[in-house]
């Protein structure tokens, strides 16, 4: 069979499975964003209102602007944090040996934790009366003993980011380890023989070879950070005030608290547009010429 046909044949199964379930709901959501659909009034979208929902977001809704800022802070913090710690863990654990392989299997566990359980548990861990995190921090850093971890905007956001990093860094590190372990040993050995320091080896050999995997982990993490919902919902409820009210959380609130599916969809579409924008910039930076072959 000719490559021209085979390349489509290979994509077909995945394509068929994805498009049917994704494109219809996606198209539906986008079209709803141009309609008036208040679930409290009608069980189906009513009128076409053009850009009204979008105009409202940009000109008439301080909470929307706030949610955009909150989202950007959260995404920056969680993506950079998770990738950074993942890389550290990966470099530490990408070696042969029983201790390393056991540690690797332990590290796989946080990602497997159900978000509902993790969110609820982490909130209890921060409780000033019986929270294990709070207690340990009080012991290690006595000056921090009186901080109400979820009671100020700064700390609530910090813990939201930590919760997310705790969940994701291990999995991202496993992805990187898989990448590191497929770097041919000879390449590393050759560099070692050349007398390159570990630091230099990291920058000149390991990092470039790891670049494709790193790029993918960043994109993957960014998408999930933009869409992250459970931890906001369970840990902070968007508060205090609206200090942790992300766009996803806000879209949820508009849809299921305010019953305004039209506006909720518009917020979600704007989130997607933001994601498209961010990933395009990112692609330009990382792969200046890749992919047009």
């Amino acid at each position: 069979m000719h490559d021209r046909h085979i390349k489509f044949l290979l994509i077909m199964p995945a394509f068929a499975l994805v498009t049917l379930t994704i494109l219809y709901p996606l198209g539906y959501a986008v079209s709803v964003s141009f309609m008036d659909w208040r679930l409290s009034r009608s069980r189906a979208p009513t009128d076409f209102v053009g850009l009204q929902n979008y105009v409202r977001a940009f000109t008439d809704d301080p909470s929307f602007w706030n949610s955009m800022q909150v989202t950007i802070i959260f995404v920056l913090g969680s993506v950079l944090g998770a990738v950074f710690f993942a890389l550290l863990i990966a470099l530490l654990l990408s070696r042969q040996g029983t201790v390393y392989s056991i540690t690797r299997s332990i590290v796989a566990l946080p990602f497997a934790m159900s978000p509902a359980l993790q969110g609820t548990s982490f909130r209890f861990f921060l409780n000033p009366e019986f929270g294990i995190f709070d207690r340990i921090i009080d012991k290690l850093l006595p000056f921090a003993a009186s901080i109400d971890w979820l009671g100020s905007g700064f700390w609530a956001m910090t813990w939201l980011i930590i919760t997310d990093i705790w969940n994701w860094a291990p999995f991202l590190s496993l992805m990187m380890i898989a990448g590191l372990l497929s770097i041919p040993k000879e390449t590393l050995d050759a560099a070692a023989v050349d007398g390159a320091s570990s630091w230099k080896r990291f920058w000149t050999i390991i990092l470039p070879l790891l670049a494709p995997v790193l790029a993918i982990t960043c994109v993957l993490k960014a998408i999930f950070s933009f869409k992250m919902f459970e931890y906001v919902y369970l840990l902070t409820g968007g508060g205090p005030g609206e200090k942790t009210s992300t766009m996803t959380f806000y879209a949820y609130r508009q849809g299921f608290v305010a019953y305004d599916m039209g506006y909720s969809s518009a917020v979600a579409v704007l989130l997607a547009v933001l994601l498209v924008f961010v990933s395009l910039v990112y692609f330009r930076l990382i792969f200046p010429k890749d992919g047009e072959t």
Partner: protein
Amino acid sequence: MSLTRKQTEDLQMVLRGAAIALVITVFLGPILWIMLTAFKPLSDVYTMALFFEPTLDNFRQIFERPFFLGSKLTNSVIISTFTVLIGIPCALLAAYSFSRFPFRNKKLMFFGVLATQFVPPMVVILPIFLMFRTLGLLDTKIGMIWINLSIVLPFSIWMLKGFVDSIPVEMEEAALVDGASRFRVIKDIVLPVCVPGLFITGIFCFIFSWNDFLHALILTRKEAVTLPVTLGSFLTEEGERWELMAATGTIILLPMFAISYFIQRHFVHGATSGSDR
């Protein structure tokens, strides 16, 4: 005074050991604390107690009315397993195609694959619900497998493409010149080298379908209800039942221990095959 080579190595060993201990504490600690909670009697759940009379009461409760965890456990296992078994081969084929063949607007196409996941699920859940209702897929395991596939496949393709990209094409070219078919090349050359990547992607698929909550909540009623929905039901109107969540969470984590065992085995295997070539 400069250190001898031996001393430097010793110091490195100690530092590494400390770092590993820290990693284990940070990531295993909270999990162990939750598991400990699962065995606590209610009087000790909301305390710092390390020593208590362990009880299996929480586990007994979750398997009884109204939670009936047993049937949901079966559903979860079936749905997640089939999601992986169907998803990974499909994703590998697509990833290989994207990695090896020229496409017009490849970047755009590939970007499109990912862009399907840009919208938060709660916005598309109602249209999915309506579609499933029309197709008669509500409350079926097949429906749940399908919806999970549509979520994990785009990511899997992405992840696997990265791994396929890192395999040198020369070996394949030699085989193709010798007259091997594409499928053969994928099966005999790409697949073995990709094992670590396949595993990590498989775990991703498994965990995502294993933990999927929103779709299961809206799209299932009684025949295909999964574990996370039960977990959600411990967030009751009368506050959280943390001890029951912890017990369920412990059960949810059990297959993960088995999976982690495979991870370590296959990483070793993958590493060896990497150095062999």
